[in-house]
């Protein structure tokens, strides 16, 4: 395990695990409280500093639109938070879905960090939530989803807004797993140029084009200091940046994560992989997400709609990409599938 000489030697990066939030998507929200505690305890023991724990769609996520988890968010959070030795529990909050009431409840249950997420052009829907998170004293991130749909200058301007509301960290979020290293670098660099020196930059990748690790390294090269990933890649689409792989690359490059590599390799193999309902990997449909620039969470919804209405999932995903549907519009998957089925003579119009 020799270190190669690298320009990033000595850089410190904070890892944030997404298995118990983004991974909920890959499990159709069916992870039990006991499983969450088991995974989180193992991650805590391996030195992961931040662990996100909620419904896949975050606070307020329990819904017909996004599915119902096995327990309320507060129950997951308090069960996990009470067992943590060093890790902080974080949550996801998407304004329009989650509210400040739910953030207060999450805080009361033990959450101390939050990703406040908006679409990459709609940062101005987050001021009250970011300000409230700061008031609670939480580590607060502005999380710009589907970042490939805004250019570097646009991302910089949106990030600056979130910083002005009080965010400590601004994330470039590749929700579709569409970005390439050059795309990531351009956006992170543009943020670095306009943000205050003390404001951190993060990157959240999806592995739909197999670029999760490379994109995360590119982000660090351009000035990012926080990286989201999930052990064994348990996440939406082809999963998040596989955290144990990323940690190994960091170790080779001399990037300091403070994580015990062998321990998280064991968590991946012994705990996470056996939990998977399907092996999270780049398959035909998740590759389509990355190639067409579609929100990763749409994967399983599209497969279900395909089964029901007889229109191939890939066709549905491509059409959703063409119509520029964004995160949260899961209802439009069934709607689009039904419209396509009618055009193909597979479904009758009601009225």
């Amino acid at each position: 395990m020799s270190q190669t000489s690298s320009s990033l030697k000595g850089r410190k990066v904070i890892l944030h695990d997404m298995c118990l939030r983004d991974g909920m998507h890959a499990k159709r929200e069916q992870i039990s409280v006991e499983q969450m505690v088991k995974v989180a305890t193992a991650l805590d023991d391996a030195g992961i500093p931040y662990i996100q724990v909620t419904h896949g769609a975050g606070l307020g996520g329990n819904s017909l639109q996004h599915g119902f988890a096995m327990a309320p968010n507060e129950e997951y959070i308090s069960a996990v938070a009470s067992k943590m030795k060093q890790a902080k529990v974080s949550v996801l909050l998407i304004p329009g879905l989650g509210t400040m009431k739910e953030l207060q409840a999450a805080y009361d249950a033990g959450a101390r960090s939050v990703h406040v997420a908006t679409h990459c052009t709609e940062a101005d829907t987050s001021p009250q939530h970011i300000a409230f998170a700061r008031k609670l004293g939480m580590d607060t991130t502005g999380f710009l989803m589907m970042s490939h749909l805004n250019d570097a200058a646009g991302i910089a301007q949106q990030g600056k807004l979130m910083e002005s509301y009080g965010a400590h960290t601004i994330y470039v979020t590749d929700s579709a797993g569409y970005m390439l290293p050059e795309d990531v670098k351009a956006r992170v660099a543009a943020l670095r140029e306009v943000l205050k020196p003390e404001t951190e930059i993060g990157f959240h990748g999806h592995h739909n084009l197999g670029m999760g690790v490379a994109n995360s390294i590119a982000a660090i090269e351009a000035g990012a200091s926080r990286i989201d990933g999930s052990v064994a890649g348990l996440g939406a689409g082809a999963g998040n940046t596989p955290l144990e792989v990323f940690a190994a690359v960091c170790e080779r490059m001399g990037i300091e994560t403070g994580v015990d590599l062998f321990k998280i390799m064991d968590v991946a193999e012994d705990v996470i992989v056996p939990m998977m309902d399907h092996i999270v990997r780049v398959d035909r449909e998740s590759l389509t997400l990355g190639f067409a620039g579609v929100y990763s969470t749409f994967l399983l919804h599209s497969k279900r709609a395909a089964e029901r209405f007889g229109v191939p999932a890939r066709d549905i995903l491509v059409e959703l990409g063409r119509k520029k549907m964004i995160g949260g519009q899961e209802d439009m998957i069934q709607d689009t599938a039904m419209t396509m089925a009618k055009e193909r003579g597979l479904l009758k119009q009601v009225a």
Partner: protein
Amino acid sequence: MKKIKCALIGSGNIGTDLIYKIKRSPVLEPVWMVGIDPESEGLARAREMGLKTTADGVDGLLPHVEADEIQIAFDATSAYVHAENSRKLNELGVMMIDLTPAAIGPLCVPPVNLRQHADKLEMNVNMISCAGQATIPVVHAVSRIQGVEYAEIVASLASKSVGPGTRANLDEFTYTTSNAICKVGGARRGKALCIINPAEPPMIMRNTIYCLTDDEPDHVRITESILQMIGEVQKYVPGYRLVNGPIYDGNKVSVFLEVAGLGDYLPKYAGNLDIMTAAATRTAEMFAEEILAGKIQLKAVETV
């Protein structure tokens, strides 16, 4: 024919669109527009369209209420100032139609409960939210056939149609709409989700309604009830259209709608704006018709 004279408070997107809707009404006449910025585009446009304007807020209107016979006022400002506006105008016998999320008066969705409010001579009615106006008729169409344990609505809005007030206060939008799904829609529990989509060209407003019925849903009767209700809404919002459904999965009923606007002030994609202003106009018309027919008489509200 005599018309009931109206004042519009707030000179933003909603206030401006209301001028067009009210001008078209056979029973309403827009007379005053109230703003707070003398340079605002909305006030300039109102003057061009023949309205009297003031940039001194509601206080600038009060001295003219009696002489100009204002009987109905539309408030399209914000939840924070609505209560004061309403108190001041109610004292002068002006009925308030509230387009903010303040919701101090009863909630109104015209095809569901407008008649009831007119009969009670309410002096302040609240129009909930655009998503509420678009989806609650369908929730009610299901709940009037069978008990609805839970209803959830998803509204997708074009980014260009969502003003700064809504953006900065999304939680109020969520709370007000969720509450109205129960109170007016008739569901026992309700939840509202809102997505702002920046696609170009802008997407037309979309709404999805899910209802969970207590028992196995009666497909024929529920479908018929929903189609009838859509027809009722189309009377005042012609661009209100069923795209897909109703579709049934066990006890879940799903309906997928589109709302195109008339393109009065903002383009047609902004159905969210239109359904609010059209519902508010429809509400005012019902009161106006009753006043003109001599069936009701607005009275000044005494403040305690």
